[in-house]
């Protein structure tokens, strides 16, 4: 069963890559150049704190998916557990907000 599911996924990805190769074969002739010098060193990104907070929150969010699947069967106990979890997450947001982490530098 699982093999069938993921073979479909694999096949469709292969089809997409095949389509791309076909298109690249058609567009090999290069006509115009964009004139530019190398610019990779000229930028800095200004959302460092956002990125760090995001990293932790995205990981926490993963835990909610298995919980959500079994929630309706367990009931009140699961709800209270999640209440504690969400309280901790919200205090994390409140803390970083209060410390000025949610500002674009």
């Amino acid at each position, binding site marked *: 069963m699982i093999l069938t599911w993921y073979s479909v996924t694999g096949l469709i990805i292969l089809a997409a890559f095949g389509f791309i190769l076909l298109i690249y074969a058609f567009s090999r002739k290069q006509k115009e150049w*964009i004139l530019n010098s190398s610019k990779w060193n000229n930028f800095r990104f200004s959302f460092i704190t956002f990125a760090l907070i995001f990293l932790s929150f*995205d990981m926490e969010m993963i835990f909610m998916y298995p919980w959500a699947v079994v929630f309706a069967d367990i009931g009140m106990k699961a709800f209270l557990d999640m209440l504690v979890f969400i309280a901790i997450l*919200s205090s994390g*947001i409140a803390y970083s907000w209060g410390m000025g982490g949610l500002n674009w530098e």
Partner: protein
Amino acid sequence: MGIILSLAAVILLFSAGTLITILIEPMLSTTDEEGPASNSPKNNIYPVHPDSWLYNAAPAVALASMAAASVVIPIDKSLAGADIGIGLFYFIVIIDYMVLAVALGGWGSNVPESIESCYRIIAQLVAYVVPLGLAVIGPIMMAKSMSTQNIISSQSSLWYIVSQPLGFALYIITGLMQVYRAPFLEPFSNILNNGIISTYGGWRGKLWRISLSGILFIVAAMGAVLFLGGWSGPLLPGFVWMAIKTFAVLILMKWIGQRMKLLSTARMLELSWKILIPAGLLNVLIVGGLILMGVGGK
């Protein structure tokens, strides 16, 4: 044999949907800023100092992620590419490869506007992923499953748009961020010379157009599955209902987006972390309370 048939059906139907999206999108736009839907250069242009591997891999990654994500969207009662058990989770993970693709293209082409676009795309990912994830937890809780077919069949009595209006609103807003349409089109805006689109010409540019319209279609289709009951409906066959609901969500998204003021990336991040994520956490609690009171859950 069954695999090949469902594969062909998925490719055919989603290509058709993407083409229709490409055709109708200009009719729904009222502003000059077309963002990801703007036209790429006609000539076959190429940057002088690219990272060739990254630059050429970008459209491939974009199209492959579109194709792989479309597999789990059910088109009819018995017609879906693959009804994977963790379907919804698979979907929200694999569709984020689009961000990787745009970032690769922006970085690889080594043109100032594109590199700036690459950074802003990643900032936009930081803004939308968490609220989007929280919005789709609601349907999972009520359906007790992550399989997209189970989510549709659990909506036979009541669509989730009725029981979870907050979740639907969150999905529409984060969906707009995910597809880079107005008001969240900063990485593709005119100030950045349309971002990566201006560095890909000819057929490669057309490929970006396909991927960037395809993601709009697919996100709208998933919205229809999650909140509007997917293919279920009276009289008409399932795939017709699916098409009607998908384009209804698509038109709603475009309509709402056109009526809001364009937001910069900094404002997007603030909107996400100060409003959308607290609202998403609240939504999880509200849905949990509803299930405990006997609404929705089986």
